[in-house]
């Protein structure tokens, strides 16, 4: 019995350790968990994928900064229900990954802090952000996060099918410059290849169609959100865009009845010419185009959305690191500043994910320009447009607009009616907001 008690005491003492008085920062992120592969990795240059690169970056920060304790919370995408719960409970994390389009939901309620003081302490000059990245974190004249990248929509192009359709010139895809040209090229493509010009996700993918609408409304300087509580969609510009989308569908120039996974697979199987989807598919498709036996082997190119109306102004979003409002010690703030400085130093590595860098200097680096297809899409960082900083509830708003667009594009509802209904529903949502 004595031996047992002694053993228990020994075990208890072994479990005790000196208190850890290092400043602790709680980093909360999405992008998944990949500890199995990258749990001990600190070689950032060798890491792949969003999860792999970020996990490795945090490991490296911990290795290089042993005087700081980092606690990482990996949350289910997109992590906002948990963040809201943590804020309500008065126990928010210190640094959080957030989509730039969501920042205003939190900044307008004082739930996240302006980060200028932290950026100053981290010696990060906001003037070094790309225009698109800065616009994503600037709300009412203040910076509410350190931008981490810019996400844009691209035309992912099957160049073999485009060549068959006679739509390649000097090794580059020929893209339209007007709605009429788009329809003409799409008809030519279908006639020569027997396949649809576009591959689209039209089922349960509201952001897919909304990005198309926003892009071409922004290109025409149409006032989508005239103020913080109203949307304007019942406009000639919006009607022209959605009518084009409906026309494409009605003439069978696109795949139909596909959700996002099905559309993604359809492109890799060479079932259509162009898949208008985000920068995040650049990496996986580039890998697929290098794989022996792939239907798109050696036949893959990307380009920003073509300029169909007005100016080139693709709708973009991005990721940022934000700071939930909370009391923190100077030591904790200093640790957070060091973390942000460290991350900014590795923005080039992050851009290997396919997203565009948030820092202009990285954009100009030969290492970035040397990455596959980056020369073709770098302009997004300059031309990309964010929604005005006062616009809130984008997730819900895009869901409502997407439902109406889906109805209009598939012919379930007349275009005029769908746009009127979308405008009414979104304005109702805003009217109900506190």
């Amino acid at each position, binding site marked *: 019995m004595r031996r047992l008690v002694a053993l228990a005491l020994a075990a208890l003492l072994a479990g005790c350790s000196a208190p850890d008085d290092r400043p602790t920062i709680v980093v909360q992120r999405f*992008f*998944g968990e990949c*500890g*199995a592969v990258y749990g001990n990795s600190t070689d950032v240059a060798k890491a792949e*994928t969003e999860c792999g690169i970020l996990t490795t970056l945090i490991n490296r920060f911990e290795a290089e900064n042993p005087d700081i304790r980092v*606690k990482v919370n990996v949350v*289910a995408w997109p992590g906002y229900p948990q963040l809201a719960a943590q804020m309500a409970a008065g*126990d928010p994390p210190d640094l959080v990954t957030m989509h730039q389009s969501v920042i205003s939901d939190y900044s307008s309620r004082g739930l996240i802090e302006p980060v200028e003081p932290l950026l100053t302490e981290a010696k990060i000059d906001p003037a070094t952000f790309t225009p698109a990245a800065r616009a994503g974190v600037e709300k009412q004249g203040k910076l509410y996060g350190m931008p981490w990248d810019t996400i844009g929509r691209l035309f992912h192009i099957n160049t073999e099918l485009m060549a068959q359709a006679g739509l390649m010139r000097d090794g580059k895809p020929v893209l339209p410059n007007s709605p009429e040209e788009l329809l003409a090229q799409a008809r030519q493509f279908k006639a020569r290849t027997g396949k649809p010009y576009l591959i689209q996700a039209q089922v349960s993918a509201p952001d897919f169609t909304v990005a198309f609408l926003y892009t071409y409304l922004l290109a025409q300087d149409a006032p989508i959100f005239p103020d913080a509580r109203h949307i304007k969609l019942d406009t000639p510009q919006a009607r022209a865009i959605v009518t084009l989308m409906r026309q494409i569908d009605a003439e069978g120039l696109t795949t139909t009845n596909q959700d996002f*996974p099905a559309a993604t697979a359809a492109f890799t199987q060479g079932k259509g010419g162009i898949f208008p989807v985000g920068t995040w598919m650049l990496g996986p498709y580039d890998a697929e185009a290098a*794989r022996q036996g792939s239907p798109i082997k050696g036949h893959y190119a990307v380009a920003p959305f073509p300029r169909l109306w007005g100016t080139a102004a693709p709708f973009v979003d991005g990721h940022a690191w934000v700071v939930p409002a909370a009391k923190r010690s100077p030591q904790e703030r200093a640790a957070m500043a060091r973390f942000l400085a460290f991350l900014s130093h590795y923005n080039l590595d992050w851009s290997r994910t396919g997203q565009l860098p948030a820092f202009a200097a990285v954009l100009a680096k030969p290492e970035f320009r040397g990455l596959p297809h980056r020369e073709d899409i770098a302009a997004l960082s300059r031309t990309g447009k964010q929604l005005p900083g006062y616009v809130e509830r984008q997730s819900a708003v895009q869901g409502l607009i997407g439902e109406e667009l889906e109805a209009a594009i598939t012919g379930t509802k007349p275009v005029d009616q769908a746009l009127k209904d979308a405008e009414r529903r979104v304005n109702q949502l805003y009217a109900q907001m506190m």
Partner: protein
Amino acid sequence: MSQNRLSPLVTVLLLIGAAIMLMPMLWTLLLSFKSNAALMADSGSAFMPPWTLENYAAIFQGSLTTRWLVNSLIVSTGATIGVLVLSSLAGYGFARLEFPFRRTLFVIVLLGLAVPEQAVILPRHQLFAMLGLHNSYPGLILPSLTGSFGVFFMTQYFRAIPPELDEAALLDGASRFTLFWKVLLPLTWPAQATLGVFTFLGSWNDYWWPLISATTSDYFTLTVGLASAQMNYAQTSGLGFLMAQAVFASIPILVVYIAFQKQIVSAMAGTAVR
């Protein structure tokens, strides 16, 4: 015997219905044995070799998966035991004891059946925050104990037991507790099993409350943990892993269902309450 035999037409219809219901599960299982890359290229490749266990290996290589599994077991078991104890006691009280406002209280309990969880989630979250219960096992278990269904279910079961048993036991000198513990409770085994199974399944599958109460990875349950482990666009570039997660998370449920299928079927058929 012949009266119980199904006609060929009914048998065929049932087989078709069963096949339709089984199809998504078989599809999930099949996808879980294919590599993510193969499925991104063509999900139809699931029907052809090579198949692989790499998605299942990836689940176990996740640094916290075992912890999330243990968390789910602790939370589901704790909730099940708590619900059984409280519901049995309350059910016995409502069915057998006379006390002031008994009917009113029972009506209040019944009203609880009509209140969806979403309606109380905010005050509950704030209450738990004030009490410092978030990111703890009690924080994950306690909300399950307030469900009205168990109390209603056990009350009905106790009511169905002939009161003559009480009278006989009391005449023999049994106390109220002895009557409850030694005479009536053993008779409620079928109801206890049914309620226990449903509570365990409900707690195991719960996603919303653990999502907002357990905000640090150490206290994630399996449902929340596996969701957090998914990379963005998992449905396109990580389909095999996603399906393996679904299969893995449902294995304990399958075991519970197989072990208690008699009780579940009788509950579904409405025969658990006599």
